[in-house]
């Protein structure tokens, strides 16, 4: 009996060891290939090198199964309730834009769709879109100026609900109630537009806007002929913001609510692919668009599936259930993927567009003292934060040195490293030179005020760890940093300026003027109350300057001056990571559109 029990115990131990070893996920093959992976190119194959793009001819290939963590939900991704990055991933190959956004976030004129897009006048600013003739949607209807006009009507926010006296109806906060509810009106709100003929769309700006190229990209152009058919409006270009409310309401109701999910009859494609089928909360399938103007896409079919868990995605790739996976950045999953290189899996990681940062609240008297801001910046050890939180995914990660440029941009300059040396001794010297005195509790004080402040943030584990590291580093510099974890911090508190220091992330965009609302005096998202006339002047130039070189100089000036004021301290870029089978090439993750930005160029064996 004892022998039997002993054998059973041994068998149990062996069984548990087998299961646990599989669960822990040891090396499955050769050692990992590092963050660079295959080094897929960020430059599109169809980049002609002169600011234009033409879809290249690629050999036809089989189906590609692409997984991401959230499902496709809407054909019209411009409404607030859709507005999802994951919809953009599905729609990038489906809805054509006048500009093709390269892997480096450079706008290239799409010569398959447009003859030209030109700034035909600077004062007043006029942009003329010249559409190529004979382009059609996948259902055979014309792709022409009507689609641009519909986009303008919806995205401008100009159709406003009015009372019997013709006055705009306001809500409780005094905002005008609009017919259309786009998620953003940036840029388009400053324009008036018309179709001078079927193939010519002309925008006239009330005030200059330098980022005009971004107005009708990222799936903005939806089929006007569908709205005409469904609402009984004969010609969309005859509808203006002052048209009868009933007409505007019909069109807006459709635009706001009917292009959700997938219905084949009302959701054609204008790009290299079109949506063929959709299983709600499971997958969306794209097939080649037979009416696409350019060279056909490589993959015969692209299936986008949503699998929330990164480990499940990784094992699915290993099991050849998937071809491309885009898991959320996670060091455990990254290590697992690196170890699959011998099984034909290529893993890549790089800094993304999203970056973590610390905003100092200028309404707090503490941070009105520049010495305090300097000392705080001097004590933070960003390298330690990056080492502990980011390098598990991207070993090449470095602290971010700019609020307005990413390291892979040619104009990137690190304007923060000299100000953030991770030196508590230097921080102490800065404080003492400004009259702060070290108290018996190890915390500096001045005029009966202790150097104690909160860092407020949501309960994301990464942020909790970031604050812990800052607390430890800055305690050595005589500062008492209090952790203010609040799961709802981003709901109201941050926009009401209810914090001392805010830790959260901004998402970068190709539109360089977007951050103006954050850093200009009185900007809609300048919640920290920062003001600097020089910075304001630089941002005015960024918004109005059409010359790229001058614009870049203005951006660098704004960046440098903001850094000198130490208003906002960049920490690190959140890494993007992706992996794919070695049967497919050219898979590169672009921060704005995901990895499907060049799906038509994929060559698949």
């Amino acid at each position, binding site marked *: 009996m004892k022998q039997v029990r002993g054998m059973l115990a041994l068998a149990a131990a062996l069984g548990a060891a087998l299961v646990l070893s599989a669960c822990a996920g040891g090396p499955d093959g050769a050692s990992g290939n590092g963050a660079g992976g295959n080094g897929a190119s960020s430059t599109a194959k169809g980049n002609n090198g002169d600011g234009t793009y033409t879809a290249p001819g690629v050999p036809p290939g089989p189906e590609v199964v692409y997984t991401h963590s959230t499902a496709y939900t809407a054909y019209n991704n411009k409404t607030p309730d*859709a507005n999802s990055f994951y919809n953009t991933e599905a729609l990038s190959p489906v809805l054509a834009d006048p500009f093709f956004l390269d892997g480096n976030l450079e706008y290239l004129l799409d010569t398959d769709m447009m003859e030209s897009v030109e700034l035909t006048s600077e004062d007043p600013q006029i942009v003329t879109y010249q559409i190529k003739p004979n382009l059609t949607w996948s259902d055979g209807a014309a792709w022409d100026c009507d689609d641009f006009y519909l986009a303008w009507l919806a995205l401008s926010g100009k159709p406003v609900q009015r009372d019997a006296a013709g006055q705009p109806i306001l809500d409780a906060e005094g905002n005008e109630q609009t017919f259309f509810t786009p998620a953003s009106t*940036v840029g388009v709100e400053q324009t008036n537009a018309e179709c001078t003929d079927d193939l010519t769309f002309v925008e006239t700006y009330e005030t200059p806007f330098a980022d005009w190229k971004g107005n009708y990209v990222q799936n903005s152009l939806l089929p006007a002929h569908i709205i005409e058919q469904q609402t009984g409006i004969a010609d969309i270009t005859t509808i203006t913001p002052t048209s009868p409310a009933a007409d505007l309401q019909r069109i807006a109701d459709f635009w706001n609510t009917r292009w959700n999910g997938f219905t084949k009859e009302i959701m054609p494609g204008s790009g290299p692919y079109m949506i063929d089928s959709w299983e709600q*909360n499971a997958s969306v399938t794209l097939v080649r668009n037979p009416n696409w103007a350019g060279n056909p896409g490589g993959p015969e079919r692209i299936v986008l599936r949503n699998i929330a868990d990164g480990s499940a995605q990784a094992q699915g790739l290993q099991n050849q259930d998937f071809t491309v996976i885009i898991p959320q950045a996670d060091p455990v999953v990254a290590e697992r993927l690196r170890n699959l290189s011998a099984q034909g899996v290529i893993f890549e990681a790089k800094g993304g567009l999203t970056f973590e940062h610390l905003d100092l609240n200028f309404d707090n008297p503490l941070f009105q003292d520049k010495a305090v801001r300097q000392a705080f910046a001097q004590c933070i050890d960003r390298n330690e934060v990056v080492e502990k939180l980011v390098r598990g995914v991207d070993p090449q990660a470095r602290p971010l040195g700019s609020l307005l440029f990413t390291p892979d941009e040619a104009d990137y300059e690190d304007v923060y490293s000299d100000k953030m040396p991770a030196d508590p001794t230097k921080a102490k010297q800065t404080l003492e030179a400004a009259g702060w005195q070290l108290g018996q509790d190890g915390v500096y004080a001045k005029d009966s005020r202790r150097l104690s402040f909160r860092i407020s943030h949501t309960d994301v584990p990464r942020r909790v760890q970031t604050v812990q590291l800052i607390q430890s580093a800055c305690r050595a510099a005589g500062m008492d940093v209090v952790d203010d974890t609040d799961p709802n911090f981003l709901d109201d508190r941050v926009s009401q300026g209810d914090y001392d220091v805010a830790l959260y992330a901004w998402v970068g965009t190709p539109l360089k003027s977007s951050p103006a609302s954050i850093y200009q005096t009185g900007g809609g998202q300048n919640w920290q109350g920062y003001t600097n006339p020089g910075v304001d002047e630089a941002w005015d130039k960024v918004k109005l300057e059409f010359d790229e070189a001058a614009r870049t100089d203005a951006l660098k000036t704004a960046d440098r001056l903001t850094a000198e004021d130490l208003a906002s301290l960049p920490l690190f870029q959140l890494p993007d990571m992706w992996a794919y089978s070695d049967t497919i090439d050219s898979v590169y993750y672009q921060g704005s559109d995901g990895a499907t930005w060049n799906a038509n160029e994929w060559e698949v064996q």
Partner: protein
Amino acid sequence: MVPYIIRRLLISIPILGIGSLLAYLMVALSGDPLANLRAQPGVTESVISNAERQLGLDRPVLVRYWNWLTDFVQGDWGVRLGQGQARADVFDTVMRAFLVTFQLVLAAEVLAIVLGVAVGVLAAVRQYSLFDNSATTAAFIMFSMPLFCVGIALKTYGIELNNLLVNLGFERWLTTAGPRRGGYDGSVGEQIFQYTGTFLLPTLTLMAISFAAYSRFQRSSMLETMNTDYVRTARAKGLRPSRVIFRHAFRNALIPVTTLMSLNFSAVLGGAIITEIVFGWNGLGTLLVESVRQYDPNTLMGWLMVTAVVVVLFNLLADILYSYLDPRIRLG
């Protein structure tokens, strides 16, 4: 029995009402569905206020609950409020998620019950034998292994099996993530191949802990029943051992397990979240997490209604089974 059933169903209505109010308030007051939109550069207050108006978020929370309740009783479950969900119909969403989870859970629970009861009976009849000790050891191992670990381990070995099959000239069989797209096609044999390849790993994962629980419950219940006077009397009267076990003891020993079955099935249905995440199945568990994370009370209410109905029905089923298994029990 019918009056009893009707009474039970009527009692559950106010309970569901109170539960729905509390759950709605907790989720609606815990955060803002538009928080992510607010944080995007360039988004204006006008955009936010118009979005709030369209989604009904500009009304007081109790008004929103009342509107939801009055719509719900008329069959309108509302739309999803989470950003990125594009106001998908809650009823459609919940029903799809329910079917996904139901598919996963049904096979696992049926297998777990059948095997668990069988092993429990055998282990009790052959107490302290090699079989009993093995079953006990296996049950405790399954209790102590985290479910996600079991799932990941099964997937790892499943991938190795697939690689072996390919090396031997066969097709890959086991799927490690998500249900099969587009259903099952081909001949009957091919469909069985596809079906088993899709369901085998998640079913084994889900049934592991359930099987362990059923086998332990059945064993201890069987042991207790086998030691009762009437069973001793039956043995003393010279009845065959199999007749004593299955005709006299087994039916009474099933009563405690019946309780466990009803509770377990409804619990697993509402929260097979770990298995769903590990295997990439978007069912009720992932829907629950999503709705809470996105502060979406409408979707949470849909989830709550479905799982509450399942709990009520399965508890009722358990009561009905009691009366069948033990004629002394009268429902009334």
